[in-house]
């Protein structure tokens, strides 16, 4: 049977694939300066972003490949999140990778492959596609985490991520098998139509929970979170930023799509577990973050806690909840990459400043750095008028609407706890005298540009959320 392919629907993915090929070819020629590869990646992702925005605005809808690939405003919105993350990460990577030509090519190739994987996860309308997208993304990330192979810590991070990730993938796969048995199909609309009533079948319940395990691992939900701090700390900082942003959003995208579209009939069964996981994740993430001294680890625990906030919106399981989750993930990606970018900016002549006490007095000594870091941390803590506040506000609001008042109260308490460790860094920067004078490297201009973009994003969403909100509310499943 001949296959009709509507290439227009696949534009963002095709642009990324084309960029991939161009980067691959350019990487082969020794005569070309490899620093151009990063720029190629940015340009390619930028075009894909522009295409996605256009398609999203136009309300493009359609399926491809026998219903396996679904383009709708939901998937396009997530494409926008992924591509923004990719562009920001590529921008902060340009200076981070240094001038070593051999390091450039594979790095950007893997980032592009991971981005493609994420896009497949968001658009997958079939568990096979979601699984393959997830694996494509994960495999690229395992390598990226261990990318600085001369650094023992980076290798260790890669190995831990890989072993734990593969272990979780096996559960995820088993879960798909059980769902396949329970519903008789792996297609998302197929599952939904086969499961019109709530089912008590152990096959389905078990399968459903194992899917939660698989996604829970990728987005770092307690108790499947323990890889995150180690990997974030060990991985190159740019990659920590990348892992904490796009893949987390991709995990939630597929999570939402599968649970809201394929398993809505079983909402009463997954709902309460999600609530429990949300409480656990927020609380454990925030409480352990307080005890951290390394800023990358602190951000790792904070990212765990943020997964918990997102789960609050997921537990609401209404349109409000979905749109708030989407908004939150966008906000979260921008601010988290920004925070990691600020960590990279705080580079001394003997390496990055990773201990929080290294930041003492930086607020005045390095005003720009202080400003970036402060803004990002305030946004992560959810202070108005930053984007973080708007995101949290809508998440909590959707939960209140769904009647999960207790969840919101616990969320609010957690927000208060989190303010403590975010502000501690700010206080250290502005109110404490440094113990020793650190020699700082000059700011790389691309990194500063990336951070300025992040700042603009955080403030723009924080001050004018309504512009974005309409677009998000039209993108729910």
């Amino acid at each position, binding site marked *: 049977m001949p296959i009709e392919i509507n290439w227009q629907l696949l534009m963002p993915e095709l642009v990324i694939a084309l960029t991939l090929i161009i980067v691959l070819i350019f990487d082969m020629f020794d005569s070309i300066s490899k620093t151009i590869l990063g720029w190629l990646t940015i340009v390619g992702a930028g075009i894909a972003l522009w295409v996605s925005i256009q398609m999203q605005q136009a309300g493009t809808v359609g399926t491809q490949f026998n219903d396996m690939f679904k383009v709708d405003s939901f998937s396009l919105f997530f494409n926008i999140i992924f591509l923004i993350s990719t562009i920001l990460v590529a921008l902060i990577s340009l200076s981070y990778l240094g001038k070593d030509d051999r390091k450039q090519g594979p790095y950007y190739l893997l980032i592009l492959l991971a981005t493609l994987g994420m896009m497949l996860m968001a658009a997958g309308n079939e568990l*096979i596609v979601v699984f393959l997208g997830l694996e494509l993304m994960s495999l690229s990330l395992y390598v990226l985490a261990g990318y600085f192979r001369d650094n023992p810590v980076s290798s260790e991070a890669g190995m831990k991520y890989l*072993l734990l990730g593969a272990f979780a993938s*096996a559960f995820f796969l088993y879960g798909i098998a059980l769902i396949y048995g329970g519903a008789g199909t*792996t297609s998302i609309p197929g599952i939904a139509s086969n499961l019109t009533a709530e089912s008590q079948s152990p096959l389905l319940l078990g399968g459903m929970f194992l899917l939660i395990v698989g996604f829970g691992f990728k987005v770092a939900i307690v108790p499947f979170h323990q890889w995150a701090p180690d990997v974030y700390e060990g991985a190159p900082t740019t990659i920590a930023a990348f892992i904490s942003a796009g893949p987390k959003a991709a995990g939630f995208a597929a999570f939402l799509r599968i649970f809201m579209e394929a398993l809505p009939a079983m909402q009463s069964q997954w709902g309460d577990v999600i609530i429990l996981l949300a409480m656990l994740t927020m609380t454990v993430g925030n409480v352990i973050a307080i005890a951290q001294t390394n800023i990358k680890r602190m951000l790792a625990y904070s990212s765990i806690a943020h997964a918990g906030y997102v789960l609050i919106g997921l537990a609401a399981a209404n349109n409000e909840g979905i749109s708030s989750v989407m908004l939150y993930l966008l906000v979260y990606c921008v601010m988290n990459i920004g925070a990691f970018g600020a960590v990279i900016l705080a580079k001394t002549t003997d390496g990055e400043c990773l201990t929080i006490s290294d930041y003492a007095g930086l607020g005045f000594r390095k005003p720009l750095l202080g400003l970036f870091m402060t803004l990002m941390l305030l946004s992560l803590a959810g202070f108005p008028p930053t984007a973080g506040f708007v995101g949290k506000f809508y998440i909590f609001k959707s939960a209140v609407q769904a009647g999960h008042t207790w969840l919101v109260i616990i969320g609010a308490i957690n927000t208060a706890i989190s303010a403590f460790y975010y502000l501690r860094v700010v206080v250290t920067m502005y109110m404490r005298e440094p113990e020793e004078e650190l020699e700082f490297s000059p700011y790389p201009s691309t990194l500063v540009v990336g951070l300025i973009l992040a700042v603009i994003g955080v403030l723009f969403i924080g001050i004018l959320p309504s512009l974005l909100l309409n677009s998000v509310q039209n993108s729910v499943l």
Partner: protein
Amino acid sequence: MGLEYYLILSALLFTTGVIGVLIRRNAIIIFMCIELMLNAANLAFVAISRHLGETTGQVFVFFVMTVAAAEVAIGLAIIVSVFKHRQTVNVDEVNSLKG
């Protein structure tokens, strides 16, 4: 043969893999155990596919094998690069990242 028997076998193989992951120190053996888990899932797919009288499950297995091959390639490469630093592949000796 009923589907149940295949699924029981698959569950036992999967659990054996999990136990292996939990008890062995050698990263390569842990990795083999993960392959064992993937295979158990494959068995479940094929058995269910057969009992449903449709082919999705078999095709799925084909894709899982590809993924497994890619995962093994990368996994072993990472293990080799860890080995270069520490002269060991015992996971409980690779724990400098913690807290």
